[in-house]
């Protein structure tokens, strides 16, 4: 079977909307209901964040959601148990995003085996260096049929971008600015220049833009230069707000706003 990420990029004509959630947030049992709601309301792909005590690349919103999730009792082992049996009802591609330490404690081989077993299509591990991935884990990922999407930033030089794109499976994660997650909420000229530069390189793997994509306007700007975009902090903030709306309603409102539906 073709990896669902590859099929998504092959079969989708328009912009791809990928949404980040933190596993076990806002409530421990919300992981799967969120996936269902996101699929129902038109997200194309979901990145499920594995909460970590020390999320170096994340801004305040995702840090806080990770802390809440850990206090709720979320663990990587429990996450895999929650994801047991979600296929085929959840048919969109799913990506696990997390820091290297929890993955290494489980063991990369066990982790990838459980990804394959539960129907996880790809992973993003920001603090796993590309060279170490290539030397130690690339063949293992390939054997399990799990993609590893790597990151580039405005400061990544051209040779390195080509090398990282070649190593990336599924898609290349274009970090929109030199920032932690959720630190910006607009797209400036220097970023547009960077997006155009990457677009014009004609890389062998499609790109998704993330970090600082927070509303319809920034989503559409990103989609001019890449196949789609990833929304994280803005979504976490939206579902974390107190009020009378149900989780389903919050998801519906958020996705509608982004997709302009």
């Amino acid at each position: 079977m073709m990896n669902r990420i590859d099929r998504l990029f092959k079969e989708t004509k328009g912009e791809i909307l990928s949404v980040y959630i933190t596993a076990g947030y806002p409530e421990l049992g919300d992981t799967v209901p969120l996936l269902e709601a996101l699929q129902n309301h038109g997200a194309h792909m979901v990145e499920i964040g594995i909460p970590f005590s020390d999320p170096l690349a994340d801004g305040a919103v995702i840090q806080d959601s990770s802390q809440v999730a850990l206090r709720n009792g979320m663990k990587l082992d429990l996450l895999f148990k929650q994801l047991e049996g979600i296929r085929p009802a959840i048919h969109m591609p799913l990506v696990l995003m997390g820091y290297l330490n929890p993955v290494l404690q489980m063991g990369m081989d066990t982790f990838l085996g459980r990804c394959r077993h539960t129907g996880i299509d790809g992973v993003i591990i920001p603090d796993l260096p590309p060279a170490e991935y290539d030397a130690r884990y690339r063949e293992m990922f390939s054997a399990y049929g799990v993609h590893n999407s790597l990151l580039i930033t405005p400061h990544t030089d051209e040779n390195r971008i080509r090398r990282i794109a070649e190593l990336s499976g599924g898609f290349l994660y274009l970090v929109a600015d030199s920032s932690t997650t959720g630190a910006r909420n607009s797209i400036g000229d220097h970023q547009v220049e960077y997006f155009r530069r990457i677009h014009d390189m004609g890389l062998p793997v499609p790109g998704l833009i993330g970090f600082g994509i927070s509303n319809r306007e920034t989503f559409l700007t990103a989609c001019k230069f890449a196949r789609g975009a990833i929304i994280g902090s803005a979504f976490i903030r939206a579902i974390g707000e107190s009020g009378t709306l149900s989780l389903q309603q919050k998801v519906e409102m958020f996705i509608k706003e982004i997709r302009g539906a």
Partner: protein
Amino acid sequence: MGFEVDDQGFYGDFGGAYIPEMLYSNIRELENRYLEIIRSDEFQTEFRQLLKDYAGRPTPLFRAERLSAHFGTRIFLKREDLNHTGAHKINNTIGQILLARRLGKQRIIAETGAGQHGVATATVCALFGMHCIVYMGELDVERQAPNVKKMKMLGAEVVTVHSGNKTLKDATNEAIRDWINHPVDTHYIIGSVVGPHPYPDMVTRFQSVISEEIRIQLQEKTGRNYPDYLVACVGGGSNAAGAYYHYLEDKRVRLISAEAAGLGVESGMTAATSLLGTSGIIHGSRTLLMQDDDGQIEEPYSISAGLDYPGVGPLHAWLAKSGRATVFAATDEEALQAALLCSRKEGIIPALETAHALAVLEKITPGPDDVVVVNLSGRGDKDMETYINKLGI
């Protein structure tokens, strides 16, 4: 088996640079240039001059007669407590500020726990007129108020960190996040031999002036340039790395690392990282660290704010694992009693961190003719409140 960092940034199984791509260009720039800069004559001249005229080096190696008589051996104290700002930390911040200037950086960031590294960073930033931002956990800001005031008097901006557990680990996370958001104009002065390569090696090199001086001073005082035992406390491990550096390959020298046992190694309230920790990744480095079975990093405990770091520098992880260093853990109570002993026997009030190294003298058994050097890494002024409360003074 070597103890120098290899070209991939590893000490045996430990080290490396496990950083997100957002930090790659910063770390790469540093990695490409630090050795060339540090080795240049022009850098060395300025560095040595400042160590001498500003920090007050060389620090004395003092023959501690009454402690020697007490323990029945020959004890020397390397007086890092006599440095400007009261600890060895200034050796590193002088080195890094000179490096930052040569890299063209205008903005300096640092993390601090007890505040000693924060003060040492604020000090060199004042000296060179650089903009200084120090990240400090909310709990530490409360516990170490005098050092917060010192940093502010020196012109630094102190940012209170509310994330995570609000201590050193979280202050370090926040400094790293700042660096991600300011990749071009900012240099991050890490305070210990931790973090991604090349930091552990770079900080070790700046601190290695300690062992360089010990060699010369021991030769003068004992007729040979090495001790039988070399004792230092290890939190992240910068004073120990500096004291060990020139003796790493010299097997005649027994390296003795003192970690903080807190309430006891088995108590669950401890910072005995290399005794209890397991291999994992913290702040961009693979090392021994305190973590749960899910890979979440745990908050350690020690009475000493300078030793309650959940990891240990990768060099120290390798020294412990390879057996090159012997690690002992001293409890809060043992450290307090050792601080009292040193005060009463030698007229020197040591920092609580250093007191753990002194406490380990009870656990080793040097002969009467053996030479024991203890790195007296810092002075006890900052810990007077704890001493007063805990020792009933």
